[in-house]
């Protein structure tokens, strides 16, 4: 199966290496031989119908800042939509960084992939957060697959877990910690008695927080993931505009201390019950959602069958790349295992 990868950052690089590393196992267990025939990054692209060498890609990116510098295979300065449409790849992987404010470039790429009959594995949350029902409809119309398991929980299979939980029962509520950075900050504030700014500085130092942490601390990242859960697991059409969102900037040490006195902790909880919301909430300290450091947790409450919780790391290049490989295997099998 020929693969075109869009985005060659932490996740894209990890994926190129992982596919190479897993080559024998994927073939032995699934009869699946992925070939990375194209990579597009923000400044260029590289193509080889026989498959690109990941080490060479990494070297070109490292030395010149773009895969377009790859000798005899690279193109610098590209029209990504046209390359996607013209490529003979069967699957497009959208792995550029999420931007909720301007998802249009990623949306155009997904539409180009669908209308030219290509499956899509997407780990960019932006287009899904604003236009999930539209993208799903377009994929169905063109009889191709849209997979996105790496968007929620990184490598932790949150979506698959929630989907499995819903079989044979109805979901009464979903509650989750979906953003590792804010969980780390709140955890530091609670454990170390730090203020918000100090805890944020520590998160930045450890590389959990982005240089611009606003998407995390203002709750937008958690909200995009909640939207994907609602659409992807419950089939409830909604977008980011339907979520009431509050971040953690206003969470004070006093609030955290007061909660602790009552055996409670403050967490940034994404919640789906009747409506959709993200905001700092007090939960009991012994709740399964009280996870430490930068972990994520998803708790599914069923009408029959009680509550179930899955905990795991919510981000990371290799973790997310693993989710992409799972999606690729699914697409491969959905195809009936035909190249």
């Amino acid at each position, binding site marked *: 199966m020929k693969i075109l990868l869009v985005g060659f950052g932490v996740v894209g690089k990890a994926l190129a290496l992982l596919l190479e590393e897993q080559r024998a196992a994927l073939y032995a267990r699934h009869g699946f031989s992925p070939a990375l025939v194209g990579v597009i990054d923000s400044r260029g692209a590289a193509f080889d119908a026989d498959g690109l060498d990941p080490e060479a890609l990494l070297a070109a990116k490292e030395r010149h800042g773009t895969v377009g510098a790859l000798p005899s295979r690279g193109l610098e300065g590209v029209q990504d939509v046209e390359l996607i449409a013209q490529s003979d790849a069967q699957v497009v992987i959208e792995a550029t960084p999420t931007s909720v404010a301007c998802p249009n470039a990623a949306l155009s790429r997904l*539409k180009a992939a*669908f*209308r030219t009959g290509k499956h899509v594995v997407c780990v960019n949350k932006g287009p899904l957060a*604003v*236009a999930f*029902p*539209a*993208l*799903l*409809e*377009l994929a169905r*119309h*063109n009889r191709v697959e849209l997979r996105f398991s790496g968007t929620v929980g990184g490598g932790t299979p949150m979506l698959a877990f929630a989907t499995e939980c819903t079989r044979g029962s109805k979901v009464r509520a979903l509650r989750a910690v979906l953003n590792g950075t804010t969980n780390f900050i709140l955890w530091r504030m609670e454990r170390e008695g730090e203020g918000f700014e100090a805890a944020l500085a520590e998160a930045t130092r450890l590389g959990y927080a982005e240089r611009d942490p606003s998407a995390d601390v203002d709750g937008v990242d958690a909200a995009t993931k909640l939207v994907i859960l609602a659409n992807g697991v419950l089939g409830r*059409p909604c977008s980011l505009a339907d979520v009431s969102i509050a971040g953690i900037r206003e969470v004070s040490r006093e609030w955290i201390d007061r909660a602790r006195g009552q055996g409670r902790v403050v967490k940034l909880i994404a919640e789906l019950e009747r409506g959709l919301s993200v905001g700092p909430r007090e939960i009991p300290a012994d709740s399964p959602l009280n996870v430490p450091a930068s972990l994520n947790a998803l708790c599914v409450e069923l009408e029959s069958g009680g509550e179930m919780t899955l905990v795991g790391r919510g981000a990371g290049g290799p973790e997310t790349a693993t989710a992409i490989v799972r999606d690729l295997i699914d697409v491969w099998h959905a195809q009936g295992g035909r190249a």
Partner: protein
Amino acid sequence: MKLVMKFGGTSLADAERMRRCARLVQENAGPEGAAAVVSAMDGVTEELWALAEAAAVTGPALVETRLASLRRRHEEAAGCLGGVDRVTQLLAELERLREGIGAVGELTARSRDAVLSFGERLAAALFERALALEGLAPATFTGGEAGLVTDERFGEAEPLFELSLYQMGERVGRALGEGRTALVTGYIAATQHGVTTTLGRGGSDYTATLLGAALGAGEVWIWSDVDGLMSADPRLVPEARLLEQISFAEAVEMAQFGAKAMHPRALEPAAERGIPVRMKNTFNPASPGTLISGGEASGTVARSIHLVQDAGLINVTGAAMIGHAGTAARVFQTLAERGINIRMISQSVSEAGISLAVAGNQLEAARAALESALLRTRAARRVEADREVAIVAVVGSGMRGVPGVAARMFGAIARRGINVIAIAQGSSELSVSFVVSRAAGPEAVRALHEELVQAPGG
């Protein structure tokens, strides 16, 4: 509230009427802005249809005259409104398309849609000028540019609903956000590859309700040349009155009666997103028109009484039909194969006979088809056709779950000495249809209107 206003072809028939419609947009647009949807000028779609047909088969001369009349009409309007250049440019494009069809000597569904699209595109080029003359800043989109994406069934394309709503909300919504008046061509759209399609029946109304749903509009106004829907045809019932408010479900029931009703598929986006649709008259804008909304207005038992004057009734009877599974399927199959539409069906639980109403001009074809399919195999004993009948339909959600409505209905008819030949009512209880002799049709409508619509406390 955001407002979507759709203008039909009669309302846009010439420059003066276009200016009138542009004024209506200017007067009614609130602070959140308005989007206008335009049909082709009156008669232009038919003209383009004929042009497309002729382009493939006849010599250039005949086609030239058709083009000339289109050119005259649009250039005349452009002479008053401005925008001659754009009109000329579009007509030149149409001319090239016509040459292409002539060269190939074949008209495909796809090229027909391309030709038909010029009606709305020309109208939009003119209406854009009319809006500008009212001091508005129009942002003009073809359906495809606005984001309306369809499948590839040319001539009767079906929108990709979610994608279209998202894209129209983004693109047209952005124009409104910039304080501009959006102007979108009705009826035409594009495939995901950008090829022009048309929406078929109810097309421009459909564009308007899709746009209303995409923008989260407060209301969608459908402007035409009638005040709205009436409780009966005023030519039959002088006391007929304007229906001020009806439900979406009632509007769907009424869609079969009268050319001015809205096509059910055009109502769907509005019903699904709960956006009220108001039918209004460009020549009488002060009238509130008919509001079609999710609520069920309290009022009379029946909302409206309709008459299908030219109907034929067929009775299929025979003991072999009783308890025999599949008889009805064979009857319907036979008619479907001949392209005969069934207007009404009635069968009693005894199963000794099925009564079907079809359009009067299809009665003989239906009878012949059923005779050859059923009598030969002895699936039925008799096929009788009654030419002289009319169908009367009573529509209204006020009948639902109210005992005694049937008694009042049949009582009113019986008092006039009219015999009911066949009856059909769906379990939705939104409408009851019955067959009477053709001569008695108008009188039956008057009787029912008096009893169920006019009577105090209905």
